[in-house]
């Protein structure tokens, strides 16, 4: 009733995970380094070593050339002393160069792996910090690839390409300086011949960056397609749709292959341009050199020596351009990771300045709450509701009525589009995240378990609990004999996603986990899957004990749950239409709840 937002029914645009594709290459590197400061640690020493090793790469061939020309092939006969001295000096240079490259490579390797490992961890954490809705906009396989293969691409590039890139750029500079000492005119000629290459580089980089962007995206889609027959193995088999599933996977694999080959084609063409520039440069040096020679400004020997220097220039330019193209793949991966980190963790934790919830059952208030999923219509419209501390409330309504959204709002998996959710009078947005998660616990419909023991999964609710505390907690909610009956008791492995246990047993572990978490507000999204009656009874008993002394709100799919609750809230089309004790609501003839109840009673009759 009290909303001031002009159109509270509409949500902001969908908050998807940022693709990162629009971030420029230099920007990507700059921000990448800011995210992984380890990359820049000790960079000065590394660059010094790089300079040393670069100089060595140029000095050694020049020394060999000199030894040949002025030692062995000296005009006045072989000069033994000069040859041996030069050979020894060159050997020293080779050793120093080798040592410098080893140290530089190792340092780069260490910096890269350290920096990217922390980036990986940071990205992983960020995935968990994203709002639920955002997590669901991206395929799991794609999220996984952002913290695995995308980062691997960057690390492989820095380690193998990064070293060569640094050395190549250095060599180009050193070769330019040495060339300029011989003849600035010819140096200019060389640079002019390479100018088209350097200028077209930007164009090619852009095309390549697009092409590799597509490649990285296709990897994500391919992984997601490959995951399907693994996760859905049973359904694929029982419907004998292996052929169809394979066809879909094959399409994803081939689309990826096509994208990769296309990118490779661009790389090949852009790389080959360097060779054409080199041919032009050689021709230019000879032609201009000859013309300069005729003008009396160069000797034949100088022209030939210069031609040798050009090869020292061309090699690293080609190496450098190749690495720059390889870099696109890495940068595409890096972009996706940075894009992920750019995606806002929308639900801001107020941090230390936030309030803590009191350590007792809380009262709950929804005040004029509107909610819409990104880009969708309002699912809750101006909902106001008060629940006193310690009450047990069932929320009922048709599928799509908005009742599950209430559970998400109460546990702050989403924030209202407008209006407020308050616990003990404090707006949830002002409660510290740690306090909120400790005092408010959601038991989801499907109790996801980790591939570990029952004990480890239960301890997920309270990491401080030891085995005896877990067993005591199990006894408190009547699960001790069930645990005793498991093959390895509390140490029984539950399998991937807990699939070694039945759906009902998974729920028991989820309840034990919630009990150990010891919340003051318990929000239960009731499971729809039925379990066998004995287990059902056990679950109900555990639930009863779990809810005792806590404010408990159940999103109910069964009316038996509603019947037992202190209060029932009936949601229809995003609004609360009824609220009160079961008996009262049933008595209200023609009401939504009365209709629901009548059909339920009819069903019971079918059975007996």
């Amino acid at each position: 009733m009290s909303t001031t937002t002009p159109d509270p029914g509409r949500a902001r645009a969908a908050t998807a995970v940022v693709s990162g594709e629009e971030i420029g290459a230099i920007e990507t590197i700059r921000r990448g380094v800011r995210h992984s400061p380890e990359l820049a640690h000790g960079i000065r020493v590394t660059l010094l070593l790089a300079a040393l090793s670069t100089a060595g790469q140029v000095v050694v061939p020049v020394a060999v050339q000199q030894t040949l020309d002025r030692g062995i092939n000296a005009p006045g006969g072989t000069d033994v002393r000069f040859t041996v001295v030069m050979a020894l000096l060159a050997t020293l240079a080779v050793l120093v160069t080798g040592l410098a490259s080893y140290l530089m490579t190792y340092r780069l390797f260490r910096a890269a792996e350290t920096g990217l490992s922390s980036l990986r961890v940071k990205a992983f954490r960020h995935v968990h910090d994203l709002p639920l809705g955002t997590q669901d906009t991206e395929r799991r396989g794609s999220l996984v690839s952002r913290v695995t293969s995308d980062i691997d691409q960057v690390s492989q590039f820095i380690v193998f390409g990064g070293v060569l890139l640094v050395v190549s750029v250095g060599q180009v500079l050193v070769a330019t300086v040495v060339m300029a000492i011989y003849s600035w005119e010819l140096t200019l000629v060389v640079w002019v011949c390479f100018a088209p290459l350097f200028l077209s580089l930007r164009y090619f980089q852009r095309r390549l960056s697009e092409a590799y962007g597509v490649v990285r995206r296709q990897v994500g889609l391919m992984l997601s397609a490959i995951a399907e027959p693994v996760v859905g193995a049973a359904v694929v088999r029982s419907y004998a749709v292996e052929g169809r599933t394979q066809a879909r996977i094959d399409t994803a694999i081939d689309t990826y292959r096509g994208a990769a080959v296309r990118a490779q084609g661009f790389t090949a063409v852009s790389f080959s341009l360097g060779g054409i520039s080199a041919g032009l440069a050689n021709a230019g040096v000879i032609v201009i050199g000859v013309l300069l020679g005729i003008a009396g400004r160069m000797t034949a020997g100088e022209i030939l020596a210069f031609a040798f220097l050009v090869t020292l220039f061309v090699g690293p330019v080609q190496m450098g351009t190749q690495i720059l193209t390889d870099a696109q793949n890495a940068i595409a991966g890096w972009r996706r990771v940075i894009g992920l980190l750019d995606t806002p963790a929308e639900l801001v934790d107020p941090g230390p300045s936030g309030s803590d919830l009191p350590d007792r059952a809380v009262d709950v208030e929804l005040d004029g709450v509107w909610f819409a999923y990104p880009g969708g219509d309002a699912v809750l419209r101006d909902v106001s509701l008060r629940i006193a501390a310690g009450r047990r409330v069932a929320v009922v309504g048709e599928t799509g009525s908005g009742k599950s959204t209430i559970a998400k709002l109460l546990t702050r998996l989403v924030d209202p589009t407008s209006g407020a959710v308050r616990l003990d009078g404090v707006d949830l947005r002002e409660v510290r995240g740690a306090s909120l998660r400790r005092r408010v616990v959601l038991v989801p419909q499907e109790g996801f378990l980790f591939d570990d023991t029952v004990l480890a999964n239960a301890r997920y609710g309270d990491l401080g609990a030891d085995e005896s505390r877990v067993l005591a907690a199990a006894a408190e909610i009547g699960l001790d004999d069930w645990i005793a009956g498991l093959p390895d008791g509390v140490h029984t492995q539950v399998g991937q996603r807990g699939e070694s246990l039945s759906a009902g047993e998974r729920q028991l572990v989820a309840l034990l986990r919630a009990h150990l978490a010891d919340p003051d507000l318990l929000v239960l999204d009731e499971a729809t899957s039925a379990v066998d009656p004995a287990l059902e009874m056990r679950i109900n008993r555990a639930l009863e004990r779990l809810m005792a002394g806590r404010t408990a709100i159940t999103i109910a799919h069964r009316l038996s749950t509603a019947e037992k609750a202190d209060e029932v809230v009936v949601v229809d089309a995003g609004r609360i239409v009824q609220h009160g004790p079961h008996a009262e609501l049933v008595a209200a003839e023609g009401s939504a709840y009365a209709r629901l109840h009548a059909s339920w009673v009819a069903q019971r009759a079918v059975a007996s």
Partner: protein
Amino acid sequence: MGPGGTARPSATRAGLRVLGVAIRREPWVFTLATLGSVLFGALTVADAWVLGWATDHVVLPAFRDGEIGAGVLVAVVALFVGVAILRAVGIVARRLGAGIMQYRMEAHDRRAVTRQYLALPMSWHHRHPTGVLLSNANADVQAAWGPVAPLPMAVGTVAMMVIAVVQMVVTDLVLALVGLLVFPAVIVVNLWFQRVTSPLMTRVQELRGVVSEIAHESFDGALVVKTLGRESEETERFRQRSEELRDVAIRAGRLRAAFDPILNALPNIGVLLVLVVGVARVLDGSSDPGAVVTVAYLLTVVAFPIRSIGWLLGDLPRSVVGYDRVRSVLHAEGGLEFGDDRLAGHGPGARLEVENVRFGYAAGAPVLRDVSFAVEPGRTVAVVGPTAAGKSTLTSLLTRLVDPEAGALRVDGTDLRDLAYGALADAVAVVPQTAFLFDDTVRGNVALGLDVDDAEVWAALETAQAADFVRRLPAGLDTELGERGTTLSGGQRQRLSLARALVRRPRLLVLDDATSAVDPEVEARILAALRRDEPGTEPGTTLVVVAYRKATIGLADEVVFLDEGRVVDQGPHDELLARNAAYAQIVTAYDHDPAEEALR
């Protein structure tokens, strides 16, 4: 030393075998790429020749005569640029060829690996975590075929190397031998590198798998992580393995950091050796300066091929590890064998016989023992029993996800093992306890490749009580559901899964607690529609229902009561209720008020 370090005779030999596989599988692309590489090598030599020609015909005459004709200058430019363009063609052919080859190899293995995922039995899947399987199909395949990229270059430069070596030997045998000492040195360095890095590379690939597995599991359970505020603990778990990966990668990187400079330095040292020995030979008159210069120059020519072969060999350990991990999937055995028999796809309900079936997931721990029962066409049987009685295992056997250890299951008298591939699915449909949806549209998920028109899809959705919510979806039948249908609620997923079975009009339908999302009234309507049991008509669909609800049990013609893997009793619900106390207790338990129970 890791497992692969000592047991394998030589990572290089194994690596070359892997490359052999690639060449045999893609001979034409490989030939094209190698020709490109040879063209490139030949033209690199031609470049030196053009420079020589320009010196003799342009530079020297120009200085001698003090002038130069325009025609000669044009010829120089044309020669240099012509050679450069041809060389560019060589580069494109090599790189594109190598890329096509590498990605084809990858695609081939990915297809093969996923075919295995589809063919291998469920028991194999239960033993292999999703993350590892994804890693096998991605990172391992990539590692295996990584060296295919530099392969044509390495092979092409071998030609260059052979020519250079022959020339060296012809010029001066002794100097050639001195210079060629580089080769054994390179081989020794390589062997050392392979030996020390193999175990590290194995570990790196393993850890990549582990890291990917943790990320997968953790993101799968994101809701639980979030609601219990366990982000930090999950991050810590991920960090530990990620840092372990980092440390091993740094150790491997340190070796690589030493390997590359040594590989670069060896040819240089060879050249310097040739110079020193050459001086001595020139002094005692057994060689002349020209020969020393030639051998030294040729040695610098072979330096590049040596390095590119070195790089190739350097990539091999990682390749072998990836290849072996991929092979372990491809060589896994245990796919189901199929016969040739078929079943009628449509028509009256099928007859089902289960005879003396025994089955267990682990040896010595049978889940089902000596289970026998039969279901006549058109009849409905409810399978009832406490937890771990073997109910879900029975549905796995009925749809042949697993085969019995002893005994047989028959549909219309045919043993399931004698049926052709796909024959069982033509006549039998199952709706599992947990619905699985594909990353596809609603229509794609319901039809699942079956040739049905929209009317039939809508009819099935209608029956499964899914039509209403599907109509409300943004694009109706064409709405994309996303990975595993995460955009829908559990109940909605279950109804689509039900519609998927119904649209097939199966002759035997197995429902494994699959109707819990629909209310009992609707369930009764669905079952009745399938049964079509008006007198005088053909029998309708035969139904096997794993039931938890008394309402569902009430609809069955007969009940099979399972406990601890045995059929304890069998007969109409009322009779069982009257004569079997355990059964009565289980069935009536549902009607107890657990709250009262707890208070008592």
